[in-house]
């Protein structure tokens, strides 16, 4: 089956030929003998044409792996998606870039804006105290604040939706 591996700045076409005995990968003119064996629930030992890689599949569900430590965010598009794209459909899910979520639990100490404010990319949005440090969270893109979901002085959990831009 044909796949496309997409990262931020690259796209590679491969064909995966699974078999009962082995996995072969066709990449352009190269045939690659691929063998991945799970050594821990979230870690694989991979041999590809005898080159050895340790691959971590850190976060289940997320399209993110580490190869010999290097973190790689990727999308794997299968033939169906590729075909849809050929037909002019954009199959890739649009990510909500303007959604600001907390990465860790903490205390919201100050919010610099109100709903409706225009903010520039890199402009401070709010202050959050976590792990004894005051963290200034900046706007990831330029746009108008459409929603603020928390108040100053509020304690928030990891993954809380704080505000939305655009």
């Amino acid at each position: 089956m044909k796949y496309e591996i997409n990262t931020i700045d690259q796209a590679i076409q491969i064909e995966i030929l699974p078999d009962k005995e082995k996995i072969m990968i066709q990449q352009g003119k190269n045939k690659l003998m691929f063998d991945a064996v799970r050594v821990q629930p979230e870690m694989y030992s991979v041999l590809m044409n005898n080159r050895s890689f340790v691959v971590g599949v850190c976060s289940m569900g997320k399209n993110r792996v580490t190869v010999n430590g290097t973190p790689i965010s990727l999308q794997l598009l299968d033939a169906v998606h590729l075909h849809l794209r050929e037909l002019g459909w954009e199959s890739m899910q649009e990510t909500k870039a303007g959604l600001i979520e907390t990465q860790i639990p903490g205390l919201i100490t100050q919010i610099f804006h109100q709903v409706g404010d225009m903010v520039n990319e890199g402009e401070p949005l709010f202050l959050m105290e976590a792990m004894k440090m005051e963290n200034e969270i900046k706007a990831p893109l330029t746009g108008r604040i459409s929603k603020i979901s928390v108040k100053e002085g509020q304690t928030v959990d990891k993954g809380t939706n704080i505000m939305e831009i655009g």
Partner: protein
Amino acid sequence: MFKKILVANRGEIALRVMRTCRELNIETVAVFSEADRTAPHVLFADEAYYLGPAPSNESYLRHDKILEIALQSHAEAIHPGYGFLSENTEFARRVAEAGMVFIGPPASAIKTMGDKTMARQAMLQTDVPVVPGTEEPIDNVEEALAVAKTIGFPVLIKAAGGGGGKGMRIVNNTQTFIDAVGKAQRESKSAFGDSRVYIEKYLEEPHHIEFQILADEHGNIIHLNERECSIQRRYQKVIEESPSPFIDQDLRDRMGKAAVETARKCDYVGAGTVEFLVDKHKNFYFLEMNTRLQVEHPVTEMVTGIDLVAEQIRVASGLPLEIKQEDVKIYGHAIECRIYAEDAAQDFTPSTGKIVMLQIPDGAGTRFDGAIRQDMEITPYYDPMLGKLICWAKDREGALNRSERALREFYIGGIETTIQFCRAVIRHPVFRQGPYDTHFYTQFQKALHADITRATEDVLVVAGATLYQHKEQLKHISESGKSDRKGRSNWVRAQMGREQS
């Protein structure tokens, strides 16, 4: 020597201190918060006592509770580690009043040096040069602005009560100054309970160099040479090394002498660190003295062969130093990489969660001072440092290569860490070449972060194909309820088949 010591700390430094205690045949008492019932320092200790809920001010900062436990467990001394109560004059005084030994300098030395402004005032009476700036801590913003204008921008705002980069701000102009002072005051208040700050001249192309000091009660003071600490982000050290690639023997001798003079000025006893800024013309200025064990003390241990915690304990029990200045030699080179639970790609935001997979590097010249374990939960309550990787080799190039090898070997799954960031620094040509200054991170930030995620086409194919197989297996598990193909290798079977045919 003491028979029993209470370690009033947690994490890697608690474990570090307890290891030496056990080697000296001293029993150890751990204290722990609710979040730390099964933390490594609790499992390691001979005894362990519950302190209180997870927040530090309800557990590791509670003088009363810790003193009560120390008395109950018949501990003869208390080792405060770094952070928490390590530079708390009040606590040091109360320990002594309760008839126990505080393993640290006398309360007077903590008081003098702990308050950066008092320290500056003391140092102005010596031959040791200090950076121009405020002599009194400032609570008033307008007053601070006046000083800043006098010494000229850029200036540095620092918390009077603490260290470790918390509450620190660099300001380039009048416009942003007032806002920055406010932030520094709030952070300082939250971290150290003291909102006063002070202002000093910000040196350009500065090197952050510190000297390790050992002093006993009998008036002997020696230094164990320098540590180079110019690799910082958010004003926090990330990578330290000894010796410094910037310092020559003449400068080392002069700075060492100044460090000893500093320690003598405040009647120092125990292990301490004198921090200097050195400009590009090799002029050095006293910055501050840390009246405790430093995070980065192992690099000094690796190049001198001296166990600093053992020396602290010996000195605290009243014994004279066994080492003389002329016995201190530098053997080879050591580099420390601090491994934080932080996402370097997200401006070093702390990362919490469960360590689902752990592989710690080992082998020749490779030391890891940590307090982590597979399946352990990293909570958001305390400092996000997981541990320190220290690599030694006979020269700097060897130590760089060993660090790179060890960082490549290091694997922590389930949370974000600074392992890859450290790897990017270690292999950066400017760092490899040395010397570098404290601007290193800001200057090469982009290149460093790009290096972390740099991947060849082959690596992308491996990433994609493994993700494919992983998802296929998960699919099969959920479809059939059967186990996956874990531990079985298609390819080995294929090769075997070929061989048999």
